[in-house]
Structure formats: C-alpha cells, structure tokens
C-alpha cells in the first residue's frame, strides 16, 4: 500500500509508471484478440470452402452465413435479401442481450441459426455475386473497425500528451490538499445533510419485501435494485461510522433491512438467468460461485461497512445470508463465503480481475471487490487483499488501461474486445483510495482537470459545472446529470476538494430539482440510485470512505454508552459519539417539537450519570446497564451523558 503524496519531487517518478508509454494491448488481451481473429479467419475460410469446392447451393449458402450474420441470405437471393436486414437487426438485439444480460447464446444462436436457415432455403443455384458481395461487406466492416480503433488510439495518445504536461503538478496539488484537509473524528450532520439522510432512511426502514421509492426497470444493468440497495447501505454505514457510531436504534434496523432486502429473489435472482444463458449452467446458480463480482464485491463491501460501523457481526455467522430460490432450494452464505468467492475468482482468473456477468469484466466492479477484501482483511485478520493486490494492479495497468492511462469501462474475457463504455477516473478513485492512495490521487487529479474545463460562472457570480450533452442517469436510463454530479461531489469531498464539491453541489441542486418536503430532501429529477449517491456525497468529508474501510469508527465507541432506541422520524440523530465513558448526542425533532424518550444502553450497571440537555439532570443505569431519559426536542438539542464519578455506584 502506498502512502499519501507529499513530496512534489517524487511526483514525476510516481506519474511515470501510471501512464502507459506503449500503445500495445496487454499480453492476455493480445492473446485473446489473436485467438478471436484466428477463429474469425477460420470461420471465413470454412464459410468460403463450399463455394470454392462447388458444393450444393445449400452448403454454399450455409457457408456464406458464417462470414457474418445473415450473409447466407445473399446466396439465397431474391426476397430473402430482406432476411439479411432482419438478421442484422436481430443480431444487434442479440448483442445487446449479450452485453446487458450475458446472454452469450443469443448472438451465437442468431449467427449460426441464420446460416443453417439460409442453407435450408437455398435450392438450385446461389446468387452468383453473393460470395463477392459478402466478402466485400466483410472487408468494409473490418476497415471501419480498424479505422475506429486507430482514431480511438490517436485520441488517447493526444490525451496522454496533455496529461504528461499537467499531471505531476496537479497530482501534487491533490496530495497537498488531502494532507491539509484531515477531518476531526467527531462531527455532526447539518439539517440539510439530515434531510438527505432521511431520504435514505425512509427507503431502508420499510418492511422487507416492500420496495417503495425504488426504481424498478430491469435487474440486469445499472438500474437494478441491487445497486440501489448497496448505495443506500453505503450511505447509512458511512453516516454511522463518521457521525453516529454510538447510535443503533432505527439506524441499525434500516441497514439490516437493506441487507435482508438484498436477499430477496427479486434482487439477486437475475443470476439464475445469467448463469443459465451465460455459463450454460442450468443446475447451480450459486450467486457467490463463479463470476458475479457485481454481487459478491458490492454486497461484500456493503456487509463489511455495516459490520465495521456497527460492530454487529451477525452476518459473519455461518449461513446467515440465505439466497433462497424456492422452498426446497437455497444457497447459504455469509461474509466469509462472499469474501472467499472474490478471493478465489481473483486467483482463478487469468486476468486477476474477473467478470460481473459471464464474459464481461468491469474494472469498476472489481474495484468494489478489492475494496471489500481490504475491509474484510481488517475485520477478520486475513491477508486476502494484500496477497492479490500487486498482481491485480499489474493486470489493471496492462490489460485494462487505455493508451491515455485511463482505466477502460469493460472488456470481454472471451474475445478480448473492448466495447465503448464510459468510465471516468473519478468512479475508480474513491475505491483506489482505500488500497492505493497515490494512484487514487492521480486519478482524481485527472478527473478534476477535466472537470475544471466545464466550470462556468453564472450571472450572480456563482460558479457551476456545465457538462456537455444531456447526461445519462444510470439509475433509470433517463437523461440528466444527477448521477455524474453526485459522483463528482462525492469524490471531490473524499479528496478534500471542498471548493469543487460545493460548485458541483450547486449545479446538482439547481439542475436536478432539489426539494425538501417535510424534512426529507431529494432530487426530483434523479433516480433513486443517484439520490442515494447524492445523500452520501452531501455527508462525507475528506478521506471518509477510506477511513470507513481501513479504520472504522474509533474503538472507544464500541465500549461506551449507546443510544439504542429513539422514534423515527420524531428523533433525528445528527451526532452520537462516545469516548468509552460518556455519550455525546446532537438531536433534532423530525416532526413537531416535544418531549421524546430515549433508551441508552451499555452504561455501567448501577452507576449514576450526569445528564446535560435532557429533562432529568441525572440517571442511574439499571442492572443491565440501560436507562431511559426524556429529552425536550426544539431545534438542535445537545445531550451529554457522563459518569457522575468514575467507578462510584449510586446509592441504592
């Protein structure tokens, strides 16, 4: 693990290995691409063989069908040419199904199925020009692909040159900002931050099985419920870790509800289909088996953050996470088996990084996976991350980094191809900060540099971000910048870039329809996923995510008094900290002002405590170490509970 950057003289040396000097693909990618080209060349050769040998029309048509989907219909000729158009459209849909839901059988089925169909339809003679036309189309397609790749490479190399100029200086600035912006351990949420926290709590506190306020579109891609649940969980865990580590009550319940929601078949059941049509595995759709880092990595991190922030280890108990298919069949997992799945997949994959959906390797999901292992190692004393990190980073640099030094969006493990998929450095920086902070700072320096070019000043003098285009919200597939703004704000805060974060927040508030309805904040023009990220972005500060993963709350909070019961939404907890003996609370009324009852536990049994800010000036803990207090809530209310005299029990 590398330490934060401070010495500018080292920056050049640090920046150098980050930027790829050569334009070649990594060895595994190169081998896969070579194999794909050979297989395609073989298909073309095989496809042309019937024409060369003068076999029957059926064989010739079927053979031409191997050149590209629907090419066989050229041989049939006449109205069958229309089927070529139909096939290309259906093939495009099959590719979408392959990309979106790992349905590898779809493109293969369409390609070879139409070749067979063309073979069955051809009688007598084929259209004489068909082989030449098919070959011409293949050459044109390959020419276009070559041109696209060359243009892409040229653009990336131009970007690389630009980065070489500014990166050392700007990385040093980021490092200096991080070093200067360390946050105090004990903080409290502002009313604005509490309003967005309530957005998350409202969704998390509903009964398991109900999903009010969630976007429900598909369960395969980015709008899937699982990502919404995970991000709501991350937000609550970060809130717990940094603001209210000494409050359990409804905050704990909300986090557990989200974890239980995740175990619903409607959330994880996509894997039953993906393993069937992606792995051709009809018998064992274990969600924590082969691949599926989008579940094991994301959910592992979710569970780890919860466990770390609360000290509740229930999900490390064997079989505590039951993924049930039906009454007779279920997969019993726990934090250990999820972490082992990530570990084994890292170790078994030639790339080290491994697929989400069968075949598709997304580096971002692998960042979640690596971060989950870093957290798991801290919680359970293992070395899973450390053992794999160097190989993982090496392969990330060699196989998943483009010519400009940016991490690519995804790569096909089978073919080696890299479909165009957007991936800004910012989305990786947050995670890399947990296991490779120098690399993370470089990533943020790049992202920040690009973001600065979109800064404008409005008529009132306020600065804002103007991103090009209409934007895209990955949480509901609509246009809009909520997701991008929330991500930038979150990462800017993580790196102590408050000025950028505030600028982005202003843009988010203005463009995405921020509304506070009865104390619950939300962005009305954003998806639930983007709102969850925005809620988190509003409350985090420099290094919060890194600290939540690598340190967790101060150890004292797990020994000291704990607020365990408070009514939601009547009592909003903006701060709950303990130094091991006392309990320091900041509360707000969520509804009308009035007196609220709070239960405090983990007090020393029989000990007398002084209470400042509540109705009673003191309390005495019962034999179980618990006590109730009444607190008059009118606006911001500070309550402090301290032992009257350490070790002195109250008179009976």
């Amino acid at each position, binding site marked *: 693990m590398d330490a934060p950057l401070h010495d500018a003289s080292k920056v050049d040396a640090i920046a150098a290995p980050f930027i790829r000097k050569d334009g070649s693909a990594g060895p595994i990618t190169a081998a896969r691409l070579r194999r794909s080209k050979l297989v395609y060349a073989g298909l073309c050769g095989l496809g042309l063989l019937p024409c060369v040998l003068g076999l029957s029309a059926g064989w010739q048509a079927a053979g031409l069908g191997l050149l590209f989907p629907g090419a066989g219909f050229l041989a049939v000729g006449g*109205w069958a040419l*229309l089927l070529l158009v139909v096939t290309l459209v259906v093939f495009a849909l099959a590719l979408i199904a392959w990309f979106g839901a790992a349905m590898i059988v779809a493109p293969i089925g369409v390609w070879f199925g139409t070749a067979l169909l063309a073979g069955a339809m051809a009688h007598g003679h084929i259209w004489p020009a068909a082989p030449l036309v098919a070959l011409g189309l293949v050459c044109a397609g390959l020419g276009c692909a070559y041109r696209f790749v060359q243009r892409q490479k040229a653009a990336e190399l131009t970007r690389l040159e630009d980065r070489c100029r500014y990166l050392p200086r700007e990385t040093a600035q980021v490092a200096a900002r991080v070093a200067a912006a360390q946050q105090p351990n004990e903080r409290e949420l502002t009313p604005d931050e509490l309003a967005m926290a309530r957005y998350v709590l*409202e969704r998390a506190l509903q009964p398991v099985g109900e999903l009010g306020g969630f976007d429900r579109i598909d369960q395969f891609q980015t709008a899937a419920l699982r990502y919404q649940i995970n991000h709501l969980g991350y937000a609550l865990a970060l809130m717990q870790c940094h603001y209210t580590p000494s409050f359990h009550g409804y905050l704990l319940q909300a986090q557990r509800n989200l974890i239980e929601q995740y175990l619903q078949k409607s959330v994880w059941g996509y894997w039953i289909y993906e393993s069937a049509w992606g792995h051709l595995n009809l018998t064992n759709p274990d969600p924590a088996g082969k691949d599926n880092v989008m579940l094991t990595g994301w959910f592992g991190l979710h569970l780890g953050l919860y466990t770390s922030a609360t000290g509740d280890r229930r999900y490390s108990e064997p079989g505590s996470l039951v993924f049930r298919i039906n009454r007779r069949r279920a997969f019993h997992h726990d934090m250990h088996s999820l972490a082992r799945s990530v570990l084994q997949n890292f170790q078994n994959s030639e790339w080290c990084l491994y697929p989400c959906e069968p075949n598709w390797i997304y580096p971002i999901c692998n960042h979640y996976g690596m971060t989950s292992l870093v957290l798991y190692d801290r919680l359970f004393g293992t070395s899973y991350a450390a053992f794999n990190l160097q190989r993982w980073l090496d392969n990330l640099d060699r196989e998943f980094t483009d010519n400009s030094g940016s991490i690519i969006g995804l790569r096909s493990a089978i073919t080696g191809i890299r479909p165009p998929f957007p991936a800004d450095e910012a989305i990786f920086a947050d995670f890399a900060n947990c296991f490779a902070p120098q690399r993370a700072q470089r990533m943020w320096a790049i992202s920040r540099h690009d973001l600065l070019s979109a800064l404008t000043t409005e008529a009132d003098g306020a600065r804002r971000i103007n991103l090009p285009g209409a*934007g*895209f919200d990955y949480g509901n597939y609509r246009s809009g910048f909520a997701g991008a703004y929330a991500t930038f704000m979150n990462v800017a805060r993580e790196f102590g870039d408050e000025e950028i974060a505030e600028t982005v927040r202003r843009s988010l508030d203005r463009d995405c329809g921020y509304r506070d309805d009865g104390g619950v904040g*939300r962005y009305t023009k954003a998806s639930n996923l983007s709102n969850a990220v925005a809620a988190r972005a509003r409350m985090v500060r420099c290094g919060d995510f890194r600290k939540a993963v690598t340190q967790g709350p101060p150890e004292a909070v797990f020994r000291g008094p704990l607020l365990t019961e408070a009514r939601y939404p009547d009592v909003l907890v903006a701060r709950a900290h303990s130094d091991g003996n006392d309990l320091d609370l900041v509360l707000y009324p969520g509804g009308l002002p009035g007196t609220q009852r709070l239960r405090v536990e983990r007090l020393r049994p029989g000990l007398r405590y002084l209470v400042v800010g509540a109705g009673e000036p003191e309390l005495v803990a019962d034999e179980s170490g618990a006590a109730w207090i009444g607190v008059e809530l009118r606006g911001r209310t500070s309550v402090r509970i301290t032992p009257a005299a350490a070790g002195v029990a109250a008179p009976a």
Partner: protein
Amino acid sequence: MPCCAFAAFLISQLLVALAAVKQFVFRSAASPGTALVNNAVVEWRLGAQPAPVAAASVCARPTWKRRPALRRGLALAALIEAALLAGTLYSARTHFANAQTSAANVTQPAAHCEGH
C-alpha cells in the same frame, strides 16, 4: 411493387419493434428536454400515499399524450401501416391466385392441346 410494399412494411415493423424495445429499456430518454421531468419514484415517502405527488408530475402522463405533434405523427404512422398492410394482403392474394392459376395450367392441359 408488391415486393417493395412488403419490404417497407417489414422494415417499418422492425423499426416500430425497435422503438418499443428502446422505450421499454431506456424509458424514452431520446430527447434531452423531455426526459428531465420529475422522477415520480423519489416522491415516495415512508408510510404515506404517493398518489398526490405522482399525479402532479407530468411524468405520470405518457409522452404521446403530452405532445400533440407526436400524436399526429402516430396517427399518420398508423395510416401508413394500414395502407402497407392492405398492400401486402392484396399482393399476397394476387400472388397466391396467380400461383393457383399456374398450377392449374400445369396439371390440366390447355384447351388447344386437347385435340392432339
């Protein structure tokens, strides 16, 4: 001509199907201006009925109801669809009728052949 009509009909069906898939998957994110409407989902509140806010949202009404131009376009498209369908049915009918006549000519010798 019947072939062209058939081709146009077939392609238009594919385009309509594609548009439907796009609408289903991406929820009509095609034009930037129209998509930036409130997301009714985020109006949901714990223990409250979501109906009042959802009703106020323009998002609650389908796009075709909100845009008269689109409504007219859809009507025109439906008209063309109907015309293409009619053309296709007519051409198919003509085709099969011709096929039957040809078949009859082959299986039953023409009258001028009968004397030989």
